[in-house]
Protein backbone atom coordinates (compact mmCIF):
# COMPACT_ATOMS: atom_id res chain seq x y z
CA UNK A 1 0.00 0.00 0.00
CA UNK A 2 2.70 2.51 0.93
CA UNK A 3 4.44 1.67 -2.33
CA UNK A 4 1.27 2.41 -4.27
CA UNK A 5 0.83 5.67 -2.36
CA UNK A 6 4.39 6.79 -3.16
CA UNK A 7 3.90 5.88 -6.81
CA UNK A 8 0.60 7.75 -6.97
CA UNK A 9 2.17 10.88 -5.53
CA UNK A 10 4.85 10.76 -8.22
CA UNK A 11 2.24 10.23 -10.94
CA UNK A 12 0.07 13.08 -9.67
CA UNK A 13 3.00 15.51 -9.70
CA UNK A 14 3.84 14.51 -13.28
CA UNK A 15 0.30 14.41 -14.66
CA UNK A 16 -0.63 17.76 -13.14
CA UNK A 17 2.66 19.57 -13.83
CA UNK A 18 3.23 20.40 -10.18
CA UNK A 19 6.79 21.45 -10.93
CA UNK A 20 7.76 22.81 -7.53
CA UNK A 21 6.09 20.09 -5.46
CA UNK A 22 8.24 17.32 -3.97
CA UNK A 23 6.02 14.21 -4.10
CA UNK A 24 7.27 13.12 -0.69
CA UNK A 25 5.81 16.25 0.91
CA UNK A 26 2.25 15.46 -0.20
CA UNK A 27 0.22 14.27 2.80
CA UNK A 28 -1.71 11.22 1.62
CA UNK A 29 -4.45 11.87 4.16
CA UNK A 30 -4.99 15.55 3.31
CA UNK A 31 -7.71 16.69 0.89
CA UNK A 32 -6.34 16.88 -2.67
CA UNK A 33 -8.75 19.65 -3.66
CA UNK A 34 -9.62 22.90 -2.00
CA UNK A 35 -6.44 23.44 -0.01
CA UNK A 36 -2.76 22.76 -0.35
CA UNK A 37 -2.01 21.82 -3.93
CA UNK A 38 -4.47 24.32 -5.40
CA UNK A 39 -6.01 21.84 -7.81
CA UNK A 40 -8.97 22.81 -10.01
CA UNK A 41 -11.60 21.28 -12.28
CA UNK A 42 -9.14 20.59 -15.10
CA UNK A 43 -6.87 18.77 -12.63
CA UNK A 44 -9.81 16.59 -11.61
CA UNK A 45 -10.26 15.59 -15.27
CA UNK A 46 -6.54 14.94 -15.57
CA UNK A 47 -6.70 12.64 -12.54
CA UNK A 48 -9.42 10.68 -14.35
CA UNK A 49 -6.96 10.28 -17.24
CA UNK A 50 -4.23 9.20 -14.82
CA UNK A 51 -6.45 6.44 -13.44
CA UNK A 52 -7.31 5.20 -16.92
CA UNK A 53 -3.79 5.36 -18.29
CA UNK A 54 -1.98 3.77 -15.37
CA UNK A 55 -4.59 1.57 -13.71
CA UNK A 56 -7.08 0.97 -16.51
CA UNK A 57 -9.86 2.33 -14.31
CA UNK A 58 -12.62 4.26 -16.09
CA UNK A 59 -14.36 7.00 -14.19
CA UNK A 60 -17.43 8.25 -16.01
CA UNK A 61 -18.11 11.64 -14.49
CA UNK A 62 -16.29 14.38 -12.64
CA UNK A 63 -18.79 13.95 -9.79
CA UNK A 64 -17.81 10.30 -9.39
CA UNK A 65 -14.19 11.40 -9.46
CA UNK A 66 -14.70 13.85 -6.61
CA UNK A 67 -15.15 11.08 -4.04
CA UNK A 68 -12.31 8.95 -5.35
CA UNK A 69 -9.93 11.90 -5.44
CA UNK A 70 -10.66 13.14 -1.92
CA UNK A 71 -7.10 12.19 -0.90
CA UNK A 72 -4.15 10.16 -2.18
CA UNK A 73 -5.04 7.45 0.30
CA UNK A 74 -8.63 7.35 -1.00
CA UNK A 75 -7.26 6.95 -4.53
CA UNK A 76 -4.98 4.10 -3.40
CA UNK A 77 -7.87 2.40 -1.58
CA UNK A 78 -10.00 2.64 -4.69
CA UNK A 79 -7.27 1.13 -6.86
CA UNK A 80 -6.70 -1.73 -4.40
CA UNK A 81 -10.43 -2.47 -4.23
CA UNK A 82 -10.63 -2.39 -8.03
CA UNK A 83 -7.79 -4.90 -8.37
CA UNK A 84 -9.51 -7.32 -5.99
CA UNK A 85 -12.91 -7.02 -7.64
Amino acid at each position, binding site marked *: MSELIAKLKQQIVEQ*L*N*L*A*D*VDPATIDENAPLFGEGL*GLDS*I*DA*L*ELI*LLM*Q*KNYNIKIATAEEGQKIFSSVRAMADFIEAYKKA
Partner: protein
Amino acid sequence: MKKLKIRNWSSINDHEVVLNGERKLTLKSDDTADQKLEFAYRALGVAYPKFFKMDAQSKLGWLSAEYLTKDGKLFDGTPSQDVALVLSNRKSSLDTDEQYQLSLQNEEEFLPSPAVFVYTLANIVAGEICIRHGIKGENNFLISEGFDASSLVNYVSILFEEELCQQCLVGWVEAYRGTLRSVLAFIETTTDEKATMLFTEEYLKQLYQTSEL
Protein backbone atom coordinates in the same frame (compact mmCIF):
# COMPACT_ATOMS: atom_id res chain seq x y z
CA MET B 1 -9.16 62.56 -29.48
CA LYS B 2 -7.59 61.45 -26.24
CA LYS B 3 -3.82 61.57 -26.09
CA LEU B 4 -2.43 58.12 -25.38
CA LYS B 5 1.02 57.15 -24.21
CA ILE B 6 2.92 54.01 -23.46
CA ARG B 7 3.53 53.86 -19.72
CA ASN B 8 6.00 51.01 -20.06
CA TRP B 9 6.67 48.10 -22.38
CA SER B 10 8.40 44.74 -22.34
CA SER B 11 9.57 42.29 -24.91
CA ILE B 12 10.83 38.74 -24.85
CA ASN B 13 12.49 36.88 -27.69
CA ASP B 14 14.80 33.86 -27.92
CA HIS B 15 17.72 35.85 -26.58
CA GLU B 16 16.57 38.29 -23.96
CA VAL B 17 13.96 39.91 -21.79
CA VAL B 18 13.76 43.65 -22.36
CA LEU B 19 11.99 46.29 -20.27
CA ASN B 20 11.56 49.79 -21.73
CA GLY B 21 14.39 49.15 -24.13
CA GLU B 22 16.84 47.91 -21.51
CA ARG B 23 17.94 44.32 -21.26
CA LYS B 24 16.73 42.76 -18.02
CA LEU B 25 17.80 39.20 -18.67
CA THR B 26 19.91 37.29 -21.15
CA LEU B 27 18.54 33.93 -22.19
CA LYS B 28 20.96 31.08 -22.88
CA SER B 29 21.01 30.23 -26.56
CA ASP B 30 21.39 26.48 -26.02
CA ASP B 31 18.46 26.31 -23.61
CA THR B 32 15.13 25.06 -24.94
CA ALA B 33 12.19 27.48 -25.04
CA ASP B 34 10.78 25.81 -21.94
CA GLN B 35 14.05 26.26 -20.09
CA LYS B 36 14.24 29.89 -21.13
CA LEU B 37 10.70 30.52 -19.91
CA GLU B 38 11.41 28.81 -16.61
CA PHE B 39 14.65 30.80 -16.22
CA ALA B 40 12.79 34.07 -16.81
CA TYR B 41 10.15 32.98 -14.30
CA ARG B 42 12.71 32.06 -11.62
CA ALA B 43 14.50 35.37 -12.14
CA LEU B 44 11.31 37.20 -11.05
CA GLY B 45 11.35 35.49 -7.67
CA VAL B 46 7.57 35.16 -7.47
CA ALA B 47 5.63 32.03 -6.56
CA TYR B 48 2.86 31.21 -9.04
CA PRO B 49 2.59 27.39 -9.25
CA LYS B 50 0.01 27.63 -12.06
CA PHE B 51 2.78 28.93 -14.32
CA PHE B 52 3.98 25.36 -14.86
CA LYS B 53 0.58 24.24 -16.06
CA MET B 54 0.54 26.75 -18.90
CA ASP B 55 1.60 26.14 -22.47
CA ALA B 56 4.60 28.04 -23.85
CA GLN B 57 2.52 30.88 -25.30
CA SER B 58 0.66 31.51 -22.07
CA LYS B 59 3.94 31.40 -20.12
CA LEU B 60 5.39 33.92 -22.56
CA GLY B 61 2.45 36.33 -22.28
CA TRP B 62 2.23 35.89 -18.53
CA LEU B 63 5.96 36.70 -18.16
CA SER B 64 5.77 39.71 -20.48
CA ALA B 65 2.98 41.16 -18.35
CA GLU B 66 4.77 40.28 -15.13
CA TYR B 67 7.85 42.23 -16.15
CA LEU B 68 5.63 45.34 -16.46
CA THR B 69 4.50 45.24 -12.84
CA LYS B 70 5.56 47.43 -9.98
CA ASP B 71 5.39 45.87 -6.51
CA GLY B 72 3.53 42.96 -8.10
CA LYS B 73 0.83 45.20 -9.60
CA LEU B 74 0.23 45.83 -13.26
CA PHE B 75 -2.12 48.71 -12.46
CA ASP B 76 -3.15 50.52 -9.34
CA GLY B 77 -6.26 52.53 -8.57
CA THR B 78 -8.06 51.97 -11.88
CA PRO B 79 -11.26 49.89 -11.54
CA SER B 80 -10.46 46.40 -12.84
CA GLN B 81 -13.35 46.54 -15.35
CA ASP B 82 -11.80 49.61 -16.96
CA VAL B 83 -8.55 47.90 -17.87
CA ALA B 84 -8.59 46.26 -21.32
CA LEU B 85 -6.41 43.56 -22.85
CA VAL B 86 -5.93 43.40 -26.61
CA LEU B 87 -3.57 40.77 -27.99
CA SER B 88 -2.54 39.60 -31.42
CA ASN B 89 -0.34 37.13 -33.25
CA ARG B 90 -0.12 35.11 -36.45
CA LYS B 91 -0.06 31.52 -35.24
CA SER B 92 -3.11 31.66 -32.96
CA SER B 93 -2.56 28.62 -30.68
CA LEU B 94 -0.96 26.48 -33.40
CA ASP B 95 1.95 25.39 -31.18
CA THR B 96 -0.40 23.61 -28.78
CA ASP B 97 -2.82 22.66 -31.58
CA GLU B 98 -0.07 20.52 -33.12
CA GLN B 99 0.72 18.93 -29.80
CA TYR B 100 -2.95 18.17 -29.15
CA GLN B 101 -3.42 16.81 -32.68
CA LEU B 102 -0.58 14.31 -32.06
CA SER B 103 -2.40 13.00 -28.99
CA LEU B 104 -5.38 12.13 -31.24
CA GLN B 105 -3.42 9.75 -33.46
CA ASN B 106 -3.47 6.85 -31.01
CA GLU B 107 -6.91 5.29 -31.32
CA GLU B 108 -5.92 2.26 -29.25
CA GLU B 109 -5.45 4.39 -26.19
CA PHE B 110 -7.57 7.43 -26.98
CA LEU B 111 -6.96 9.77 -24.07
CA PRO B 112 -6.97 13.42 -25.15
CA SER B 113 -5.91 15.71 -22.34
CA PRO B 114 -8.22 18.54 -21.23
CA ALA B 115 -5.19 20.34 -19.78
CA VAL B 116 -3.67 20.46 -23.27
CA PHE B 117 -6.93 21.08 -25.14
CA VAL B 118 -7.80 24.16 -23.10
CA TYR B 119 -4.74 25.92 -24.52
CA THR B 120 -5.84 25.34 -28.12
CA LEU B 121 -7.50 28.76 -28.25
CA ALA B 122 -5.62 31.96 -29.01
CA ASN B 123 -7.12 33.91 -26.12
CA ILE B 124 -6.21 31.57 -23.28
CA VAL B 125 -3.00 33.54 -22.74
CA ALA B 126 -5.24 36.58 -22.27
CA GLY B 127 -7.24 34.65 -19.69
CA GLU B 128 -4.06 33.77 -17.79
CA ILE B 129 -2.94 37.42 -17.73
CA CYS B 130 -6.42 38.57 -16.62
CA ILE B 131 -6.47 36.02 -13.80
CA ARG B 132 -3.02 37.03 -12.60
CA HIS B 133 -3.71 40.77 -12.56
CA GLY B 134 -7.47 40.90 -12.06
CA ILE B 135 -8.10 42.52 -15.45
CA LYS B 136 -11.87 42.49 -16.02
CA GLY B 137 -12.25 44.91 -18.92
CA GLU B 138 -12.55 44.60 -22.69
CA ASN B 139 -10.88 41.58 -24.28
CA ASN B 140 -10.00 40.99 -27.89
CA PHE B 141 -7.62 38.73 -29.78
CA LEU B 142 -6.82 39.73 -33.36
CA ILE B 143 -5.02 37.41 -35.75
CA SER B 144 -2.95 38.98 -38.52
CA GLU B 145 -0.38 37.85 -41.09
CA GLY B 146 2.26 40.02 -39.44
CA PHE B 147 2.49 42.56 -36.65
CA ASP B 148 -0.28 45.04 -37.49
CA ALA B 149 0.54 48.16 -35.50
CA SER B 150 -2.05 50.18 -37.38
CA SER B 151 -5.00 47.92 -36.43
CA LEU B 152 -3.87 47.68 -32.82
CA VAL B 153 -3.49 51.45 -32.44
CA ASN B 154 -6.83 52.09 -34.18
CA TYR B 155 -8.74 49.54 -32.16
CA VAL B 156 -7.26 50.51 -28.79
CA SER B 157 -7.82 54.21 -29.54
CA ILE B 158 -11.49 53.45 -30.22
CA LEU B 159 -11.79 51.64 -26.87
CA PHE B 160 -10.49 54.78 -25.15
CA GLU B 161 -12.70 57.12 -27.18
CA GLU B 162 -15.77 55.02 -26.43
CA GLU B 163 -14.84 55.03 -22.74
CA LEU B 164 -14.77 51.26 -22.89
CA CYS B 165 -11.44 51.42 -21.03
CA GLN B 166 -9.18 53.76 -19.05
CA GLN B 167 -6.03 51.72 -19.47
CA CYS B 168 -5.05 48.94 -21.81
CA LEU B 169 -2.43 46.25 -22.15
CA VAL B 170 -1.80 45.63 -25.83
CA GLY B 171 0.64 43.70 -27.96
CA TRP B 172 1.84 40.55 -29.65
CA VAL B 173 2.42 37.16 -28.05
CA GLU B 174 3.56 34.15 -30.05
CA ALA B 175 5.37 30.95 -29.14
CA TYR B 176 5.79 28.41 -31.90
CA ARG B 177 8.05 25.37 -32.18
CA GLY B 178 10.57 26.76 -29.74
CA THR B 179 10.62 30.35 -31.03
CA LEU B 180 9.47 33.05 -28.63
CA ARG B 181 8.35 36.55 -29.48
CA SER B 182 6.34 38.98 -27.44
CA VAL B 183 5.92 42.73 -27.13
CA LEU B 184 3.47 44.14 -24.62
CA ALA B 185 2.79 47.80 -23.98
CA PHE B 186 0.72 49.32 -21.20
CA ILE B 187 -1.32 52.26 -22.51
CA GLU B 188 -2.87 55.15 -20.62
CA THR B 189 -4.09 58.66 -21.31
CA THR B 190 -1.91 61.69 -20.75
CA THR B 191 -2.46 65.44 -20.64
CA ASP B 192 1.25 66.18 -20.57
CA GLU B 193 2.17 68.32 -23.60
CA LYS B 194 5.74 67.02 -23.50
CA ALA B 195 4.87 63.37 -23.06
CA THR B 196 7.18 61.02 -24.89
CA MET B 197 6.51 57.38 -25.87
CA LEU B 198 3.19 58.33 -27.49
CA PHE B 199 1.01 55.43 -28.55
CA THR B 200 1.33 55.77 -32.30
CA GLU B 201 1.55 53.29 -35.13
CA GLU B 202 5.15 54.28 -35.88
CA TYR B 203 6.28 53.94 -32.30
CA LEU B 204 4.54 50.61 -31.71
CA LYS B 205 6.02 49.26 -34.94
CA GLN B 206 9.42 50.40 -33.80
CA LEU B 207 9.05 48.53 -30.50
CA TYR B 208 8.16 45.38 -32.36
CA GLN B 209 11.10 45.73 -34.71
CA THR B 210 13.47 46.41 -31.81
CA SER B 211 12.32 43.19 -30.20
CA GLU B 212 13.54 41.28 -33.23
CA LEU B 213 17.17 42.16 -32.67
